[in-house]
């Protein structure tokens, strides 16, 4: 830790806050940038945002610090971003839940994506299904055949009823006509791993990155991925697209966004900062090591992408509610 004394810090901050109002975007940033992770520290999203912030910090004169504000399936922390000053000094990490579940269920009053300006998308994680290595099904075709013969007998673990992974499974049901016994494991990926290894669940809906250590250890096999191209880290896992299924490209992502109303040149500066960090060898190496798929969508594309995801998912959820598959 740097040992500056208290008084000097107060003076510096007062000094800077006076100037930040009058400063130009070229000077941005003149004070520390607060990054809100709306999930617990130690999780996957937390790691991605912390790593990219640490790298981005090196290219600017001030610091980027991370605060974990949990609750409301990411809604509580992101609500802070929505109500911050429109100066670009508060950014937040948005995931699938922040774009779909929170607004759909109206979990946090006053939460609205209109109140944020999306900067960029940094990672994408395709949904996937995994089984034990010693499972009787060697590939998706065998698994699907077994599920067809015994509807609702083969059990699949998801994170929660009506949450992202459950919706993905329901989409698979819709497209393939299969039916499974659904087991909810809301306690995180540790619980799902245990359930798969102890034999309680036959398969798990997850992302391959989450199960990477177990896959590499040869205990778990990736059955199929909900992507349109093979995962560079798990090239032997097929995807629905190549097997000829339509509409089964789904997954989660991490989007960085700041408060709506932030001047465009400040947003552009933030985009540049994160673009450089994202395209650094350091970030690419880290992603490669941990099974995260680094993907880039800039300010021009990211909002359209997120809104498209939201629209598609809302439509699908509404259909499921109408059909009585899940509760509103």
């Amino acid at each position, binding site marked *: 830790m740097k040992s500056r004394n208290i008084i000097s810090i107060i003076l510096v901050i007062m000094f800077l806050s006076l100037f930040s109002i009058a400063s130009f975007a070229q000077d941005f940033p003149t004070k520390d940038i607060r990054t809100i992770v709306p999930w617990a520290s130690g999780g996957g999203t937390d790691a991605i945002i912390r790593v990219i912030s640490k790298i981005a910090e090196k290219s600017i004169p001030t610091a980027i610090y991370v605060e974990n504000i949990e609750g*409301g399936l990411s809604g509580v922390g992101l609500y802070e971003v929505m109500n911050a000053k429109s100066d670009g000094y508060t950014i937040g990490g948005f995931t699938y839940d922040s774009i779909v579940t929170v607004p759909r269920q109206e979990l946090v009053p006053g939460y609205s994506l209109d109140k944020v300006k999306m900067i960029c998308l940094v990672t994408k994680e395709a949904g996937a299904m995994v089984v034990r290595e010693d499972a009787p099904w060697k590939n998706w075709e065998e698994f699907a055949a077994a599920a067809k013969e015994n509807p609702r007998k083969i059990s699949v673990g998801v994170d929660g009823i009506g949450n992202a992974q459950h919706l993905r499974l329901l989409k698979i049901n819709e497209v393939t006509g299969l039916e499974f016994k659904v087991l909810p494991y809301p306690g995180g990926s540790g619980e799902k791993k245990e359930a798969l290894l102890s034999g309680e669940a036959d398969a798990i809906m997850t992302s391959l990155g989450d199960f990477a250590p177990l896959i590499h250890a040869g205990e778990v096999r990736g059955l199929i991925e909900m992507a349109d191209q093979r995962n560079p880290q798990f090239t032997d896992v097929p995807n629905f697209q190549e097997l000829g299924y339509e509409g089964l490209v789904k997954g989660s992502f991490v989007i960085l966004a700041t408060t709506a109303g932030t001047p465009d040149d400040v947003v552009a500066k933030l985009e540049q900062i994160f673009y450089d960090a994202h395209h650094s060898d350091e970030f690419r190496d880290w992603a490669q090591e941990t099974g995260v798929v680094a993907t880039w969508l800039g300010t021009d594309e990211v909002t359209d992408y997120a809104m498209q995801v939201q629209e598609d998912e809302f439509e699908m959820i509404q259909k499921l509610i109408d059909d009585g598959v899940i509760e509103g």
Partner: protein
Amino acid sequence: MGNLDGIIQGFITFFNPSVGIYAIIGFIIGAFFGAVPGLTSVLAIALLLPMTYSMDIVSSLVMCMGIYMAGIYSGSITATTINIPGAPSAMMTAIEGNQLMKRGLGAKALGHAAFASMIGGTIGTLLLIMVSPYSVKLALMVKTPGKFSLILFALIVIILIQRKSIAKGAIATFLGIMFATIGIDTMKPLARFTFGFDILVQGIDMMSVIIGTFAISELLIQSGEIEKKLEISKDVLSKIRRKDFIPTLEEIKSIGLWRYFKSSLIGFFTGVLPGAGGSMAAFISYAEAMRSSKNPEEYGTGSLEGIAAAETANNAMCGGAIVPMLTFGIPGDATTAVLLGVLVINGLQPGPQLMTKQFHLIAPMFAALLVSALVILPITFYLLAPYFIKIVSINRGILYASIATVAIVGSFVSTFSVFQMAITLIFGVIAYFLRKQNYPTVTLLLGFILGPMLEDYFRRGLSLGHGSPLIFFTSPDSLFFLVLTVIFYYFLMIKKPMIMKEDLVQKKAK
């Protein structure tokens, strides 16, 4: 499976100075909190909890182990010198130790308490290290229906063990369970129990509950107490020399090695039992020592044997209480309940996964516990014993103002939310009123932690059984714990052996 390798690796990690130093820091913090009446090691860990966010998880676990061992042990210091147990687990030590203090043998009593703590702590940790590989295999055998029954068993035993009032224990547990339901449902993205207040959707943070029930309620209780001077007269202090503290070989022989070992076993297995804790361990061991003693008439008048039995057992309890916490996520006592919070908040899920795949995070913790008991305890005792006694004369204003500020700022730092700070205060007030009426607050916290798990397991168990609750009776793992619950009910409620023994001890003490 390379469990031995894991343990050795754990020791290597531990002896890295940047990690090991935390055990020493933890031990000194724990000794301080354990020795001051009204402060406990639970409170120490609760106050440090927000900091573990920004600390390396291994270091924070190592520090917690130091606090844990020291907190249990140092309760004996004030128990002996001023007859106020610094921690509840030193209650039995107060009975004997203070008698010796009055006879001018305080140093002897303190020395035996420290020696017994060292032995108990060491044996307890060794048992923990030996048991842990088997507990993993055991844990994988227990699936969702079994886990439901196991938690049910734990909650029932925790309630039944509240000897003062089972109904009050039950109320505190249910309150904890109910508070935990506020917010978003565990299984579905639906809000519940918001009572029309939108802000309640964010739910109650575990940190707010821990800091509120343990730190803020203590602050309120202490503020209502009339100020009393706890200072010890100067001549008592000046009389004590370091040499007097060391137990002689004859004394140890007369207590008997078997006594130490038996007390350790009693302590360890009391620890494994959910909710029992250090005071229960010390009490059972003390009662058993008195029953089998050659000189039962010495008990109550200053028996070194009694101190040895109680202090060995409560420190051996530490190792035992960690077993169910790590394997099933069911804490054995109050400190491990908060420790479970440390794990969960840092994203570690107790269970077989933790014990196999993340053993490198856990093994240094075992090393820290062992070294705390075997090395740090005797060294600190030898160096600091004369000063430990002075701890109690610390200025109340400074002490409680600091604790209050650390607690409130801590609840902000861990949530960055003024709402959660307010919740911390509310839980402090609730716990204050409950404690005033002798409701146990540890069961409130256990209800809060275990309640959501119980609900998860219950609902998933039903999914597994296609909606039928019969699955809880047909799965062998579940049936086992249900039968165990009945057995414990029989022993705790119908035979009531503890209560009879307690009466016996109280008569003796008088």
